[in-house]
């Protein structure tokens, strides 16, 4: 049995431990909530994490292209990117899998080639996670910009259409210290 086969045989246990390790990155008392609450609407974080980790592990073991897994990585990173994590904390969840595998398999008996191969794939997952993390940050900036543009764009449209001075005498439409 090669490494992948023995991991596939133990997939359920590995998935559970991996998910646990990811949940454990949350404050102690929240971790157990994320683990135990099964309602996907009451616990969207736990739900998305469990489902996506399952798909990622599947892909890793069946040898699919890392890029094909990016949608699932995104589902997790999307959440972690807005939560209280530093960038490495948010994006390094694939690395946690290494420890789970090391604990689960007698690593010394695994041919180095096979291990390096798997490790490389996990590392690529991590890099992909970093890439998506950056993408999410960019998306948030984009959203911020868009919101700003939307409100200003509207004012400009209005000014052009009506020749209006938009706010009490001020000519600067960005003097917009609040919106609803």
């Amino acid at each position, binding site marked *: 049995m090669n490494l992948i086969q023995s991991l596939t045989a133990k997939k359920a246990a590995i998935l559970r431990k991996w998910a646990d390790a990811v949940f454990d990155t949350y404050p102690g008392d929240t*971790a157990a909530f994320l683990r135990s609450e099964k309602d996907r609407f009451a616990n969207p974080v736990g739900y998305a994490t469990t489902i996506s980790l399952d798909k990622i592990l599947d892909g890793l073991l069946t040898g699919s292209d890392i890029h094909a897994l990016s949608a699932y990585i995104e589902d997790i990173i999307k959440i972690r990117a807005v939560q209280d994590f530093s960038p490495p904390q948010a994006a390094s969840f694939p690395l946690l899998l290494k420890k789970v595998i090391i604990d689960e398999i007698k690593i010394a008996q695994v041919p180095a080639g096979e291990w390096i191969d798997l490790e490389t794939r996990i590392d690529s997952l991590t890099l992909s996670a970093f890439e998506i993390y950056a993408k999410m940050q960019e998306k948030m900036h984009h959203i911020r910009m868009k919101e700003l543009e939307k409100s200003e764009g509207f004012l400009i449209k209005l000014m052009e259409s009506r020749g209006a001075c938009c706010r009490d005498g001020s000519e600067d439409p960005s003097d917009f210290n609040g919106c*609803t």
Partner: protein
Amino acid sequence: MADKKLTPQEMAQVNYLPPAGDWMDPTVEFKRGTYCYAAPLKNQEALQLPNPRQWNPQDKDWKLPLDFKQLVIGGMQERLDKFRSWKLFLDICVRCGACADKCHFFIGSGDPKNMPVLRAELLRSVYRKYFTAGGKALGKLGGARELDEKVIKEWYYYFYQCSECRRCSVFCPYGIDTCEITMFGRELLNLVGCSTEWVVGPASSCFRTGNHLAIPPHALKQSLEFAADEIEGITGIKIEVPINKKGAEILFVTPSGDFFAQPAWFTLLGYIMLFHEIGLDYTFSTYASEGGNFGLFLGADYAKSLNAKIYAESRRLGVKWVLGGECGHMWRVLHQYMDTFNGPGDFLQQPVSPITGTKFENARSTKMVHICEFTADLIYHHKLKLDPSRNDRWKVTFHDSCNPARSMGLFEEPRYIINKACNHFYEMPENTIRERTFCCGSGAGLGPDENLEMRLRGGLPRASAVKYVRDKHGVNMLACICAIDKASFPPLLEYWCPGVETAGVHELLGNALIMQGEKTRETDLRGDPLNPGAEEGKTDV
């Protein structure tokens, strides 16, 4: 950590583990994206807030007044004497935990201090320390905490992470309402001069100009004329929009976001078209040009001050009654507070729909009717001609905005209107709608851009339910009746579930409304083609 050589195993473990702290430790870190900026000096002064100064939550020294402790404790005492709710809610919580997982901020952030019970404990622990024998004697063991600057910072962090949506209150066996707790927490913060720009700014603007957006009267008029032009472009009908018209039958008050922000703007078009079509004798007001009330997010007195304009203006204009637009916290104030604050409105008359003759019994004292109640009544009496197929490009779901849901009980009217104005309507999962609706995460003054990460956390539970109906039914439109929803959902949904847009219920109504003498409509209120697939033949089923 960095200078130590780590084994791969250790590498995989580096600082993922959260700090194992106790909640009584008040230390918080103000990270970018998770807190609101402080109110600038000029706005603090405009509202005559205590301890005005230029400051920033990231400062080490918050320049609190020297006697901040006495101020806060005195403020607690004053409120204990004035509010039974405050006294009671501090005393009777049994920490059963029923509320713990009901808060959208807890669900989305995973931060245990966002559990409603704990948010209240942040105040309760200080209350115990200074007001109860057990707390005084036992200290930490009795669940009591000393009030210090760290606690003030913690309060600022967490009381601006509660959107006062009241969801937890519905599940609490004693009805303990975290909205009340948060309101008091913010009032106490206010006493020592800690308030946010995004609340104080609009509130001070509203005080002076009559609306949060600081739109002066002439600009408001231009905005309304612009709206009329837009409507003319879409329907070919020219509409005069009445402003400050004395002797009109009805004063119409709507959140100012409707005048200047998209997509709320399209809802405004919907109102104006509707009022024109039924020939309503109404007027907008520039002085009372704000239905929303950011004073509510500062404290009851500020809410009362801003709210006073609605009655004052309806008295000045001599209207018979007041009609209110789509808004969330606005209706919290109008339904539960206005009459008490600034009533009695006995110079007005009991609202009667001039079109159907329906008497609005439920508004007989306050004399203010919700636009959804008004429109549902019109549709029920067949006073409107509607063509729901004009909304066929939308597969619609409805988000119950927190305040109309849990403070008013307005559930059926908007659904009735949507069902008459649209052909495709799908409900979100049961435990995320009606009285169990999830907040958008930006209510109660949490909506500034700098707070985006926090808002995205808070909005995740709502978005995950939207995503569910999007994936299951192809829903692409979230209808709602709240101006803050209309401002906060577009970015929220773009992040969490792209492909779903946001609209007010009256935008959808405006689309469906067949107006007398209108030209064949080619676009909807957004200016998008009505039937995008029509020219290519009838491929759609």
